[in-house]
């Protein structure tokens, strides 16, 4: 079983995500993927692999494909350039000297690809910086399938 998505892999699974569903709390049961909805190619930028794995499974359960998981701003820009995803799920705090806002800025400026910021709790100053980079939206950690679906539908 290949749970790891490297930048060279493009999984386009439309899983029922049974394991995910079974672990979701009551009331957060994700809707079945809308087979008629557009399948998005998503780049995950997150330096915590437990979180990125979970996000990947949620995306796959929603019928989207994950083009890669990046852990740093530079890696995110490289992956975006190579894979040209439809949208980037961007953590703000990343390994390295540059953060997710800088990466999102550069990806939007160079490739015209928008980011949705996924963050645990953002202070006002950081949030204002993030807003200035014209994100497609904000999502709160921990992610749920419902929250992710809504965020993606608003953004795209």
């Amino acid at each position: 079983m290949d749970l790891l998505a490297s930048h060279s892999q493009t999984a386009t699974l439309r899983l029922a995500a049974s394991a995910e569903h079974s672990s979701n709390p009551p009331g957060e049961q994700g809707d079945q993927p809308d087979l008629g909805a557009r399948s998005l190619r998503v780049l995950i930028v997150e330096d915590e692999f437990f979180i990125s794995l979970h996000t990947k499974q949620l995306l796959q359960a929603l019928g989207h494909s994950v083009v890669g998981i990046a852990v740093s701003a530079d890696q995110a820009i490289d992956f975006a350039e190579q894979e040209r995803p439809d949208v980037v799920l961007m953590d703000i705090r990343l390994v390295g000297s540059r953060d997710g806002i800088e990466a999102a800025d550069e990806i939007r400026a160079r490739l015209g690809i928008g980011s949705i910021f996924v963050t645990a709790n953002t202070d006002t100053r950081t949030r204002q910086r993030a807003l200035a980079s014209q994100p497609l939206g904000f999502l709160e950690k921990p992610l749920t399938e419902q929250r992710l679906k809504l965020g993606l539908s608003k953004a795209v």
Partner: protein
Amino acid sequence: MPERLFNHRVPPQRIRTFLVLFALALTLPLIGLAVLAFNQLAGLEEEETERRVLQVAQSLVDDVDRELDRATITLETLATSVSLANNDLAAFHEQASRALMRDKAGILLVDRSFQQLLNTRAAYGTTLPRTVDPATVQRVFDTKQPHVSDLIVGIVSGRPLINVEVPILVGEEVRYVLIMALDATRLEQLLQSQRLDPQWITGITDNKGIIVARSERHADFVGKPLPPDLLEQSRTAQGVFRTKSVAGQGILRATVRSRTAGWLVSATVQVAHLEASRRRGHLFAGAMIGTSLVLGAALAYIFATFMSHPLESATRSAMAIGLGKRVEPIKSPLIEANTVIEALSTASLELKRRQEHAAFLMGELAHRAKNQLAVVKGMALQTARQSATVDELVEQLSQRIQGLAESQDLMVRQNWQGAWLADLVKAHLDLFGASSRARIEGPPLFLNANAVQNIGFALHELATNASKYGAIKSPQGRILVTWRGPEEDGRIRLDWVERDGPLVQTPKRPGFGSLVMTDLVAQALQGTATLDFSPEGARWHLEFPASHALASTHNG
């Protein structure tokens, strides 16, 4: 002492109030002393005036006595005249007239019947009346001694006079009385010669209380009796006394009795004059004190402002700190206030910094807590996927959460900055009771938080695997954990090698733990990892960029 004062219930006041009280405490005793000194001075001045009045009276009586003595000597000289001895009265008249050429006086010769035998105010041979003052003449006949009369009005001149009378002795018997009739204006001139201020009045009163001469309005008062009260006071008083003058004015008066005539010679000064002088003194002193007070108050106000304004600024600064505002240091004239405000400014900056730090820490804590919850949620979901039973899920999940907690503990001790690699290895081996069987070697390396958490995950999975199948399961098993770097290629290399454990077999299907050890941790650190299951023991090798190490010198 101040503490004892504070213990008393002094109602709190503004510093201005205390400064005003301070100024009053300084000035009121001085003003009191000045008033006392001024009154003392006024008393001395009054004593001086009294002494001066007495001196003037004394001086006058000496002049009067000298004048009367001079007249007596003149008469006694004439009494020795040859023409008088020869009873040549015509010649004597001429001689006496020459002796009196410059004096306002006349010389009379009176016999026992009080008949004037000659009078230099009339030509010799003129028929003359009897003397108007037979009493004094009789006293000279009786005593054979010179005498001075009281005031009389000359029968020939019709003017107020006084007579100085001496006996003309023939043998032991008084034959005639020789009289010098002095015009009262002559005594007035004597009084005038003192050249006193107009407020001073001097006077001579005879034994009957009749005014003989007066320095002021002599013509109006001469011959008039002194008021009985004043006469009585003048006769009985010693030294200087206060009374009313003939004109009804308040006076300060000194009276001295003439040794020659028994008259009362007095010097008076109007009380109104003295009081006016004293009033002027009071006014001057009042003006001086007033000016000093106004000037002192103005200076006190200026200096009080120098103190009160900076202290009020310090108070406002303290209140501003209470409201959480920033306080700027100021340059005021009061050093103490500057020190206080500077301290308050520093405190306000420090407070602001701490508030911001506290807010930052709260935000950071909230962020980390939610992030860790997201990690734990992902961990739980992944563990659930790999677990065949609920018991297995519970056991694996609790161990992984415990492993995560170990890494977090180390980072909390280092203020969330990261942890030393040696501590991290030891903590995860301790969790399985295996640190005593491990050799941990490597240079001091302080890893950042991301590396600590991810390497912690890998170490936990390695130790879990060793406890189930490897070196930790066997009592003889040993673990060697070593690392090196940063090396020239900018990477750090970490090895986990197991020895002397049970015979190891390569798992048929790698589990989630293997995925963590090989791929997930390596990816998260942008490094590479390999895991070999050789028969003598598992070997794990990780390489990652040195940028994950914040420091490479252990400070203890």
